[in-house]
C-alpha cells in the first residue's frame, strides 16, 4: 500500500506541519495582488450600469487622450467566436459565450458586465479615464427571476438560444437553454406502490463562493509576443488555455504562475481579468496589474445558481423509498451553463430507489454567469430531497438516521443516474453520527436538531508532478495544481513515505505552466487524489532508476536489487555490498548517469464518490427570528485521509459555507435589476463568532482504485448542511421552511403567522 519506503506510512495519515504555514502566518506568502513588476500599469474595468442593454457605440477617444492612459480596450480588441463547444483542458467551453462574458459585445447582459478596460500609470488616472469613455446604451427590459425568465413573453437574452433537449425542436428563442433528464424504472408504478407520498416546492437563492481574496492578475506581454502571468486561480493551465484562445496566442508562448490563493471554492476556475490584462499589456507594451474590488467580485464574478426545485417522493409504510421525482430549474446567469446536470444526477444519489425521474432546466437571466461552487448543483437538489426525506421520517414515525440507513446506497446499488456503485461509506457515516454524544443530548424549547446526508461524484483527470533528487539527497516536489486545501502537505507526505525519507527533506512547490506537462485545475475534489497517484508513479521511476544504477555499480542483476527502507540494497544481504541511501546516491548521481528524478504523468481514473452525513443543533430566537448554530458534527468518508487535519478542515469549511447558504446569504436585486448588497456588510456570510467548533469524524472506506484508498473530500461537505439546517429548523419551530436563506425576517414572519408575535402561542 505505501510503496516500499523505509517507514511504510510514517507520514501519510498524520498531521504533518504544513509547508506553506510559516510564510502565510508571517505575511511572506505572495497572493495574487502581491506581485508587481517595474513599470507596471494599473488596469480598471468599465462595467455596465444596466442589467440588459444593447451597446450602440463606445467612444474611447477622450479616455485615450488623458495623460497617463496607455491603453484602452473594448469588444473590438477581441475576435468574435462561433458557437461551438471546444475542449479546454477537460472542460467544454463555448467560446462565443466566454469572449462575450469577459467583454460585452452586442449587449450588456447584467449589471457589472465588462464594457471596456483601461491601463494607466496609476489607479486614479485609470478610474478617471473610465469616466471619459462614452458608451451609448439602448436599455432593454430585463429579467432576474428564474421562473419569470422561463415564461413566454419574458425578455430574451440571446436571439440564437433555442432550448436543447425538447421535442419538437423549438422555432423560437427562449431563455431556457436546455432540458435534461435522467430516469430509471417506472416512476408512476413506483408511486402506486407508495403508502406515503410527500411533495414540496423549494426555492434557493444564488450565493457567492465568498473567497476572501478578490480576483487579481499581473500580466506582461513582451515585444516578441511571449507573455507571463501571475494570477490567483484554481487552474493556471486553464487560464493559459482560455487566454490563448481568446487572444489568438500560442499556448506555448504564455507562461502562467499560480499565486498563493485566498480561497476559490470553484469560483476561480474561469477567467475574468486575465485576458483583459494580457490584451492591455499587449497594447501598452507594459506590464498590467488588475485587482477586482469586492463590489466587482459580487457583480461580475460567478455565484452559484439560485433555483426552484419540486420534489415528490414515495415510501412504503415500513420505510422503503420506492419512487423519487424532481424538477429542477437552475439559474445560469447571463450565459448558459448552470450546474443543473450534476444537480439532476445527484438529487437521489445517496439512496437506493428503484423508480427515479429527475428533470432539469438550465435558464439564463440578467445576472452574472454562474461559476462552479463546491459540488456544483448538488447542494440545491439534495437540500430539497433531504428535506422531504425528513418529512417522510416524521410521517412514518421512523428515526431519520434509521430511515436513511434503511435506504442508503451501498456497494452494488444501482445509482439513480445509471451505473452500480463500488464501495461507499454512507452507512458508516450514519452509524458514526448515531453513536455521537451529540445525537443523544437533550434539547430545550426553541432548539432543534437536524440530520442530512450528501453525495458528490469526485473526479480524477490529467495530472503531472515531478520529484527531483537534489545533490544532498533532499527532494524537490513540483505539482501543477494550485494548493487550496493542503495539497503540498499531502503530496510531501506521500513522497516521503514512498521514498522512505524524512518529511522535512521534501520541499513541495507549485510549478508554473512551463515547468510541467498539462494539469487540469484544482476542482472536482481531485488534486490530492490525482496528485498522490502521480507522486507514486514518479517515486516508482526514481526507485527503478536507482536499482538499475546500483546493479551496474555492484555488478549484479537489476532484479537482485530492491529499494526498501529508504535504501538501495541487494534483496539478499551481501557483505560485499553496502546499501546506499538516497543521500549516498545523490552524491554520486553525476558519476552514475546524471540527475535523478521522476515525473508522474497520468490521467487519473477511479475517483470514488464521497458521502457524508451532518448533524446540527440550533436555536431560534422567537423575538427576532435569529438562528444560532449551537453544535455541529460532520461525518464523511475520506477513503483514506492523507492529512487528517486538512481533511477535517475541508469538512468544517464546507459546513460553514453551508450554514451561510442556509441561513443568510442571498443576492438581493431591486426592481431595476441592480444588485443591492454587493459587499460583505450587506451580503451576510458567517464569521467565526457565528459558528461553534465543528466536530469532524473522518470515516475511511478505502477507494480500491487508489494506492492509498483516497477519495476526494473537498466538495461533499457543502452538500448536507442546507438540508440538515432546514430539518433542524422544522424540529425547533414545527415549521417546514422551503425557501433559503432562512434569514431572520423570513423566520420571524413564519413564526408570527403560526404562533403569533414572539412565538407566544407555542
Amino acid at each position, binding site marked *: 500500500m505505501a510503496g516500499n519506503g523505509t517507514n511504510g506510512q510514517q507520514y501519510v495519515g498524520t498531521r504533518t506541519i504544513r509547508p506553506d504555514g510559516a510564510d502565510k502566518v508571517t505575511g511572506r506568502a505572495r497572493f495574487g495582488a502581491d506581485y508587481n513588476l517595474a513599470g507596471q500599469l494599473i488596469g480598471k474595468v468599465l462595467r455596465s450600469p444596466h442589467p440588459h442593454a444593447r451597446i450602440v457605440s463606445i467612444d474611447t477617444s477622450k479616455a485615450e487622450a488623458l495623460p497617463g492612459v496607455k491603453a484602452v480596450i473594448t469588444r473590438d480588441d477581441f475576435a468574435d467566436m462561433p458557437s461551438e*463547444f471546444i475542449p479546454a483542458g*477537460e472542460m*467544454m467551453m463555448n467560446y462565443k459565450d466566454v469572449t462575450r462574458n469577459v467583454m460585452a459585445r452586442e449587449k450588456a447582459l447584467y449589471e457589472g458586465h465588462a464594457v471596456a478596460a483601461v491601463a494607466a500609470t496609476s489607479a486614479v488616472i485609470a478610474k478617471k479615464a473610465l469616466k471619459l469613455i462614452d458608451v451609448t446604451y439602448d436599455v432593454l427590459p430585463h429579467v432576474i427571476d428564474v421562473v419569470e425568465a422561463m415564461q413566454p413573453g419574458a425578455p430574451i437574452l440571446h436571439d440564437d438560444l433555442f432550448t436543447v433537449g425538447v421535442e419538437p425542436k423549438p422555432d423560437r428563442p427562449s431563455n431556457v437553454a436546455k432540458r435534461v433528464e435522467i430516469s430509471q424504472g417506472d416512476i408512476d408504478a413506483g408511486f402506486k406502490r407508495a403508502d406515503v407520498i410527500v411533495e414540496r416546492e423549494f426555492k434557493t437563492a444564488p450565493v457567492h463562493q465568498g473567497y476572501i481574496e478578490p480576483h487579481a492578475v499581473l500580466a506582461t506581454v513582451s515585444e516578441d509576443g511571449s507573455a507571463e502571468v501571475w494570477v490567483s486561480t484554481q487552474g493556471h493551465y486553464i487560464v493559459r488555455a482560455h487566454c490563448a484562445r481568446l487572444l489568438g496566442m500560442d499556448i506555448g508562448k504564455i507562461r502562467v504562475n499560480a499565486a498563493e490563493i485566498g480561497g476559490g471554492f470553484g469560483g476561480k476556475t474561469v477567467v475574468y481579468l486575465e485576458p483583459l490584462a494580457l490584451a492591455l499589456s499587449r497594447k501598452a507594451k507594459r506590464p498590467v496589474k488588475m485587482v477586482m474590488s469586492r463590489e466587482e467580485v459580487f457583480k461580475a464574478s460567478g455565484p452559484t445558481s439560485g433555483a426552484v426545485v419540486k420534489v415528490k417522493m414515495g415510501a412504503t409504510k415500513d420505510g422503503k423509498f420506492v419512487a423519487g421525482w424532481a424538477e429542477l430549474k437552475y439559474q445560469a446567469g447571463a450565459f448558459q451553463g448552470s450546474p443543473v446536470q450534476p444537480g439532476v444526477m445527484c438529487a437521489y444519489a445517496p439512496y437506493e430507489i428503484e423508480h427515479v425521474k429527475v428533470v432539469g432546466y438550465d435558464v439564463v437571466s440578467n445576472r452574472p454567469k454562474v461559476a462552479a461552487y463546491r459540488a456544483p448543483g448538488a447542494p440545491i437538489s439534495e437540500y430539497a430531497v433531504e428535506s422531504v426525506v425528513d418529512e417522510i421520517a416524521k410521517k412514518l414515525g421512523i428515526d431519520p438516521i434509521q430511515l436513511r440507513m434503511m435506504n442508503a446506497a451501498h456497494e452494488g446499488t444501482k445509482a439513480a*443516474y*445509471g*451505473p*452500480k456503485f463500488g464501495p461507499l461509506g454512507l452507512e458508516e457515516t450514519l452509524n458514526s453520527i448515531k453513536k455521537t454524544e451529540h445525537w443523544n443530548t437533550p434539547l430545550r424549547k426553541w432548539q432543534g436538531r437536524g440530520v442530512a446526508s450528501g453525495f458528490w*461524484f469526485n473526479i480524477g483527470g490529467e495530472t503531472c508532478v515531478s520529484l527531483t533528487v537534489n545533490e544532498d539527497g533532499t527532494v524537490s516536489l513540483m505539482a501543477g495544481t494550485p494548493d487550496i486545501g493542503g495539497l503540498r502537505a499531502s503530496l510531501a507526505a506521500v513522497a516521503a513515505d514512498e521514498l522512505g525519507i524524512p518529511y522535512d527533506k521534501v520541499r513541495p512547490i507549485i510549478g508554473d505552466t512551463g515547468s510541467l506537462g498539462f494539469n*487540469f485545475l484544482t476542482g472536482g475534489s481531485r488534486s490530492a487524489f490525482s496528485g498522490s497517484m502521480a507522486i507514486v508513479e514518479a517515486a516508482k521511476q526514481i526507485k527503478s532508476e536507482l536499482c538499475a544504477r546500483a546493479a551496474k555499480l555492484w555488478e549484479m542483476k537489476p532484479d537482485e536489487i530492491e529499494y526498501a527502507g529508504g535504501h538501495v540494497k541487494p534483496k539478499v544481504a551481501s557483505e560485499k555490498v553496502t546499501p546506499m541511501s538516497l543521500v549516498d546516491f545523490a552524491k554520486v548521481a553525476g558519476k552514475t548517469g546524471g540527475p535523478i528524478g521522476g515525473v508522474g504523468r497520468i490521467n487519473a*481514473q477511479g475517483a470514488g464518490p464521497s458521502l457524508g452525513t451532518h448533524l446540527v443543533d440550533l436555536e431560534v430566537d422567537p423575538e427576532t427570528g435569529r438562528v444560532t448554530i449551537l453544535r455541529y458534527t460532520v461525518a464523511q468518508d475520506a477513503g483514506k485521509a492523507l492529512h487528517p487535519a486538512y481533511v477535517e478542515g475541508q469538512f468544517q469549511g464546507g459546513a460553514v459555507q453551508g450554514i451561510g447558504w442556509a441561513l443568510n446569504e442571498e443576492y438581493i436585486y431591486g426592481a431595476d435589476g441592480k444588485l443591492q448588497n454587493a459587499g460583505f456588510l450587506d451580503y451576510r456570510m458567517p464569521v467565526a463568532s457565528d459558528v461553534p467548533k465543528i466536530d469532524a469524524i473522518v470515516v475511511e472506506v478505502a477507494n480500491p482504485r487508489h494506492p492509498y484508498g483516497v477519495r476526494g473530500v473537498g466538495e461533499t461537505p457543502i452538500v448536507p448542511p442546507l438540508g440538515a439546517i432546514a430539518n433542524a429548523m422544522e424540529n425547533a419551530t414545527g415549521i417546514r421552511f422551503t425557501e433559503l436563506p432562512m434569514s431572520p425576517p423570513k423566520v420571524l414572519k413564519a413564526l408570527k403567522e403560526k404562533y403569533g408575535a414572539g412565538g407566544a402561542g407555542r
Partner: protein
Amino acid sequence: MARVVLVGNLTQLTGGVAEFDLSATSVRQLFRQLADLHPEIAPHLEEGVAVAIDGQIYQDALLEPIGADSEVFILPQIAGGSLEDVP
C-alpha cells in the same frame, strides 16, 4: 457483447434507443460503433462524456478496455470546476 446504456439526453440522438449490445473492446471502439449506428451522436461523444464500465466512471479514457460482458453507461461528463456539459 457489452451492454451499453445511454443516460440522459443522449437518447435524443439515437431516436430514443437507450440500450445497445456492442462488441467493443475499448472506449474508442465503443464510440466508433455508436457513431456508425447513429452519426448524430458522434460529436457529442467527442466533445465529452463520462463512461462507466462495470460501475467505474472514466473520463477522457479512450483506451480503457471494455470486457465482453461489461455493463457500460454513457453519462454526461462529471463536472469538476466545469459547469459546461453537452448536449
